[in-house]
């Protein structure tokens, strides 16, 4: 039976593991802002894990522990007005796009105040104003949708770029191929980031594909592909920035691959006993948050006190937002019937009321 392999020496992840570096394209304030987003992402999920244990989360909890760096780094490389669609483990991308902790808490707790009003959960939230397209659970479907966003940018000469993500598992879907080829042919200003995080639920990458690097697939679409150490936040930032620049120039899409690792199970209920301990240890030593802290402190950009100040700010914000979420009511059952169609003034199509029949009492929910 195939076993997940430890990363080979030529992997970017191992090559750069001990490297600390800054990037000349970011000023100190920006690098501290990135730290804030990174810390916020990790801490939100820690709070969510507590809520999960307390039974306050409706449904599952999907964490991105160990993958926050690439979410934050890639999203930070986008400009205002650019569009992004997260997958389940891209909380960090949403945070960079301006999503606040209360939005995530209320989503997971299915409250009326959540961005979807309790109609959907997890990070399935959308906001056209902020350039966020909410995902659906069907893997790969965001790739054509974001291609469409990019096509619209091109047609309307908006100069904006669309970015989405797919996992090493989701990359096996048919729509991955259909859509990336479409984006290439249309020369859409689009970036696809394949997150190779080792496992798709319990299935190791070696059972998913026979290739080592997903970036190799780019050649099949006639577009550039690049593999980056996903736990090196600044490397992801730079690679995404290059892809965005290319897209804005009119040169079409880029396939970026980030090598990272899922440090938890697929969801909180999954203890991930199928993941070999040595792999976890290997990647724990390359934790993206620790590495970024090291970069900041060793380069002299930030002192430990500076970072502590940010941590405290994050904690205060989380307390505040958590309180708001916990005090938020569940949605009014009536709202379940709203917003199926655009014009609610038309006939009722929800099937509850048949002409000539009294409304059937629904009982207490």
């Amino acid at each position, binding site marked *: 039976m195939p076993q997940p392999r430890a990363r080979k020496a030529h992997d970017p992840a191992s090559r750069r593991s001990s490297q600390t570096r800054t990037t000349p394209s970011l000023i100190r304030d920006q690098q501290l802002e990135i730290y804030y987003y990174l810390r916020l992402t990790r801490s939100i999920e820690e709070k969510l894990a507590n809520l999960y244990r307390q039974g306050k989360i409706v449904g599952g909890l999907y964490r991105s522990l160990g993958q926050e760096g690439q979410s934050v780094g890639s999203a930070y490389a986008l400009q205002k007005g650019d569009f992004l669609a997260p997958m389940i483990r891209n909380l960090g991308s949403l945070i960079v796009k301006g999503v606040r902790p209360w939005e995530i808490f209320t989503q997971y707790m299915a409250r009326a105040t959540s961005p979807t009003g309790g109609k959907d959960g997890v990070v399935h939230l959308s906001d056209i104003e902020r350039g966020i397209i909410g995902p659906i659970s069907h893997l790969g479907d965001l790739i*054509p949708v974001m291609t469409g966003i990019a*096509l619209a940018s091109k047609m*309307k000469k908006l100069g904006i770029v669309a970015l989405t993500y797919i996992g090493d598992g989701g990359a096996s879907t048919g*729509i991955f191929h259909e*859509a990336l080829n479409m984006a290439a042919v249309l020369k859409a200003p689009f970036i696809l980031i394949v997150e190779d995080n080792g496992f798709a639920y319990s299935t190791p990458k070696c059972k998913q594909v026979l290739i080592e690097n997903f970036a190799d697939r780019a050649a099949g679409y006639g577009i550039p592909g690049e593999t980056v150490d996903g736990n090196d936040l600044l490397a992801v930032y730079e690679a995404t920035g290059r892809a965005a620049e290319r897209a804005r120039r009119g040169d079409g899409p880029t396939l970026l691959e980030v090598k990272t690792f899922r440090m938890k199970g697929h969801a909180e209920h999954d203890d991930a006993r199928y993941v070999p301990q040595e792999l976890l240890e290997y990647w724990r030593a390359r934790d993206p948050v620790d590495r970024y802290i090291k970069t900041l402190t060793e380069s002299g950009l930030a002192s430990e006190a500076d970072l502590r100040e940010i941590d405290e700010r994050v904690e205060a914000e989380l307390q505040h937002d958590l309180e708001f979420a916990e005090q938020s009511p569940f949605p009014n059952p009536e709202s379940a019937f709203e917003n199926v169609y655009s014009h609610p003034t038309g006939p009722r199509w929800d099937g509850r009321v048949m002409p000539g029949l009294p409304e059937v009492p629904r009982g207490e929910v």
Partner: protein
Amino acid sequence: MGESCPDFPKYRAEKYEVLMAQLTFVEAIRQGLWEEMERDPNVFLLGEDIGTYGGAFKVTEGLFDRFGEERVIDTPIAEGAIVGTAIGASLMGLRPVAEMQFIDFISNAFDLITSFAAKYRYRAGASVPIVVRGPCGGGVHGGPFHSQNVEAYFVHTPGLKVVEPSSAYDAKGLIKAAIRDDDPVLFFEHKYLYRRIKDEVPDGDYIVPIGKAAIRREGADLTIVTYGWMVYKSLEAAEQLREEGIEAEIIDLRTLLPLDDEALFNSVKKTGKVMIVHEATRTGGLAGEIAIRITESVFDELDGPIIRITAPDTPVPYSPPLEEAFLPQVGQIVSAARWLSKY
């Protein structure tokens, strides 16, 4: 769009005649698309072979010459990506019309239509104003994969609207309504009708509202609820029935989701007897839904069982005698109506 593409031998559409009053079904759809593209720069088309070639059925003939490759986009053979791209563009304020070369291939885009487009407003509050259109139906010996009627797969999906016109007039008015609608609309064009029917189509702008059925023939003895090509078979049957003293009222649904309950119930109140005729297969077909709506709401008005004439529960066969056996025929409608009227 690729620069290295060889020049396609220039295909010149015949001069598009806007003033024509009698239009075929296919011309009416084309005119509707044309006028909407003239009216609103956000409207654009995408699909396979729709540009220089004008589409497998030439529905988009001439549009490429008029509106250019930016707005009449030839795509790879990838229905999922076509619909997905349309969805994304629509979220940015564009009004995409995606063509399925044959509506059978819409199954490749099922996920994007039912899981993404249909649910986006509910989950995210944003409109997905796309139209997915294409030729449906049999009668041209297209075989199992070029003849299907797929409406039942989609009327089960809240958030979608499903339209199937039967006249040229309605085809133009409904394609315009579909493009202007803020929700995703599936627009089914019966390919048998493309060049076989011709009716009066006014010049210029009008719409046929989505959600409204039409009475094609008035009658007091029984109601035939139908749509698409079957409207014509029902009309033919009604002419035969008239000679026997049976007057059938024919309701052309035009919109399959949402159904026009009011038109259905009013006709049932008048005739007391209902037959539903559809070309789609029987089990799980729209006839079942229509029948239960009538029994739930106007049961007391019924003077007999609701019956249905549909295709049998088989794939659409290829060979002409097999396809004849598959498709609902005028004779079946006539004899069922006779039986029902005596009930």
